[in-house]
């Protein structure tokens, strides 16, 4: 058997695709969460800064045409309540610096209806600055008072860092879950393929039926071509079996005629030399005829095994019929045919095939048992099985050749001088296999072969 040319793996490909997608998705989710968190935290910082700036603005009073600022304690302390933050502020009246940190940048675009926000570097650290503005009429002149409050971003950084760590944890968990899901998915996706492969490799050598099990739509073309291949194979196999049967049949009839003619001639010829030649001819014809017969039997068995024509059969009766049929042959060699049979053993089998198998076993026994020998045949029923046992007083099977015996055209080493094709036990084995039965062969201690045919009871 040649190994398939393997390139790539569906499982690996699927795994890589799924896991890459999961990884990309995890990273995306982490980045998205981080970005949302950053915005949320920034907004909350802006709100606190805004509240602080407004609280300063609310403390501003006009007294005698002068702006009086009374910085509330909470306006700066509120900025430091959760984490330690450096805070800065600056107050301007129009363009004139009033108090606070005069270098603090004022976010552009601040108006008396809308605050402005800016992130900038100040005194060595990044700060978030919020400015609010309000209009005061000072001696009938409208003047803009701008309050800017700034804060370092320790809390923002910490919170974003915390969320990021959490998000990375979630991302990792998501990825790990994806690994598990991917494994299951890939397992599911490739399972029908493995099932198909198993169901095909489990089949017997002659099982060429189309695949009947349901498969996913994607695998339908594969199964269709597989079925069509098997169908063609079956047709071709059948054709060759038919050809063999036809050939055997066509050979057998002329052989019978030739055999008769040879017998007749043998009686007429007196010269010993010629008689011997004729006897050799007769023997050769017998052998060919028998081989043709067995080829025919084998073809029949092969043909019928695929589609058994089962009926209820009494095995005892069947064996007795075979014995009676073969008794003349045994008598020729002065063999003692002993039958020990139960009353009746009923099985559901194809009678023609079983008959053929029993016939073959008995024929072998008769052939290999020396003159004046004994052949014992028994039919018994155990709890689950019907057993036909045939023992003889012949030379037995050669050691180690048991398996060879059941191969096609193999004959025992001691079979020389005996007419046979080597197909007998092959036929028996095939018949038993078709009936879910077994064929056992062994040698018995007193000398001789033992063949046991077992069939499941009905």
């Amino acid at each position, binding site marked *: 058997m040649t190994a398939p040319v393997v390139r790539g793996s569906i499982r690996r490909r699927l795994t890589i695709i799924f896991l890459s997608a999961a990884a990309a998705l995890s990273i995306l989710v982490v980045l998205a969460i981080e970005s949302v968190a950053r915005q949320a935290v920034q907004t909350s910082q802006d709100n606190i800064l805004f509240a602080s700036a407004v609280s300063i603005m609310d403390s501003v009073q006009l007294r005698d045409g002068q702006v009086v600022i009374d*910085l509330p304690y909470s*306006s700066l*302390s509120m900025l430091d309540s959760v984490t330690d933050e450096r*805070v*800065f502020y600056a107050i301007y009246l129009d363009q004139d610096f009033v*108090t606070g940190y005069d270098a603090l940048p004022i976010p552009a675009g601040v108006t008396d209806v809308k605050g402005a926000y800016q992130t900038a570097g100040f005194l060595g650290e990044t700060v978030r600055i919020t400015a609010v503005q309000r209009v005061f009429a000072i001696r009938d002149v409208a003047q803009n008072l701008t309050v800017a409050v700034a804060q370092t971003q320790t809390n923002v950084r910490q919170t974003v860092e915390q969320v990021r760590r959490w998000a990375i944890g979630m991302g990792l968990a998501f990825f790990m879950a994806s690994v598990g899901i991917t494994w299951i998915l890939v397992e599911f996706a490739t399972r029908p393929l493995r099932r198909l492969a198993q169901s095909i490799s489990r089949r017997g050598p002659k099982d060429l039926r189309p695949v009947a099990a349901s498969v996913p739509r994607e695998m339908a073309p594969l199964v269709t071509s597989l079925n069509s291949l098997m169908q063609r194979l079956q047709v071709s196999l059948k054709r060759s079996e038919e050809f063999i049967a036809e050939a055997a049949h066509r050979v057998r009839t002329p052989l019978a005629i030739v055999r008769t003619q040879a017998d007749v001639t043998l009686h007429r010829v007196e010269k010993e030399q010629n008689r011997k030649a004729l006897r050799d001819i007769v023997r050769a014809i017998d052998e060919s005829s028998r081989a043709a017969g067995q080829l025919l039997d084998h073809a029949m068995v092969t043909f019928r095994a695929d589609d058994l024509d089962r009926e209820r059969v009494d095995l005892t009766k069947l064996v007795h019929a075979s014995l009676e049929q073969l008794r003349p042959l045994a008598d020729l060699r002065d063999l003692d045919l002993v039958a020990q049979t139960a009353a009746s053993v009923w099985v559901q089998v194809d009678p023609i095939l079983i008959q053929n198998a029993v016939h073959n076993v008995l024929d072998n026994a008769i052939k290999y048992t020396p003159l004046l020998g004994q052949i014992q045949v028994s039919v018994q029923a155990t709890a689950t099985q019907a057993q036909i046992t045939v023992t003889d007083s012949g030379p037995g099977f050669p050691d180690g050749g048991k398996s060879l015996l059941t191969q096609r055209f193999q004959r025992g080493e001691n079979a020389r001088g005996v007419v046979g094709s080597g197909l007998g036990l092959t036929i028996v084995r095939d018949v038993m296999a078709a009936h879910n039965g077994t064929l056992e062969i062994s040698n018995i201690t007193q000398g001789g072969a033992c063949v046991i045919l077992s069939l499941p009871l009905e």
Partner: protein
Amino acid sequence: MRYFILAIGMMWTLIGAQVLHGFEIEARATFGPPTNDPNLRILSTADISYFEPMIASFLENNPDISIDYTVASSSQVMQAIAAEQAQFDLVISSAMDLQIKLANDGHALRHAPLRTVELPAWAHWNSMVFAFSQEPAAMVVSKAFLDQMGGTHTRQSLIGLIRKNPDKFRGRIGTYDIRRSGLGYLFATQDARGSETYWRLMEVMGQSDVQLYCCSSDMIGDVLSGKLDMAYNVLGSYAQRHPHADQVAIILPQDMTTVMLRSVLIPKTTQQPALAGLFLDHMLQRAFGTQTGAGRNLAGGPSLESSAINRIGLGPGLLVFLDRYKKQRFLSEWESAILQ
């Protein structure tokens, strides 16, 4: 004391130092091996005698280090670090607001304290300012005055007492001149933040001709000498360390005791950040380490357990009272209460 050499005593007028620095110093001392180039320069508002034990214990483990200890007022400390960029390795001050301002304005280095020291949350700010002692603002009174006060020691009872005997206490009560003393200003703003009683007390004191002082020690000295009956809002620790401390009583106001945190920071101008960190850790170890007890009062001041504590928080809230307008407003209110 045998581990170090006290090289120079106090120099009240130090001409040489004034050439070196633009800011005014009050005293200076060096510890450890004599040298012209000390390893560690400390700028502090605390008296030399107050801080000596801390330096001594540090030199026990680090005998090779020479330490220069310069004393200046809190405003001069601010001037030295913020304006003149004077080179010091540690800045120790009782003026929490100015310490916070130094750090907030970027004049301090961040420092990660040792993990072995369990620093309470109130004892540090932004990894830059570290508190190493807490000292309550107390009333230091003479024994005679204590008898008249009776059992209740609140601002309210004090107001009542002075009102009843305005002539008796005329000129015999002292407190900080908050225009001159940073610590006095800090105590005053915190008092005012805590309750309205403060302003009434100031008015009452103003009516009985309150004496104004720049420093706790002077006030305590005058109580001891009998010139004063009572000093309000002084550092109890100073009175306690005085050799004649048994002649006066240190009272913590029961309605609310303001507690000041003496703090330390490493200025950006330091040439020895590692050594400064080592000394800072030593200070925190002594203040909060397990052997000495958390929050121990370094100077062995009065127990804080029985009073309602208002521990001044280290944080930017303190910057509010440093605002030019806020300060002007507060001082003018104070003046109108005190100077009648």
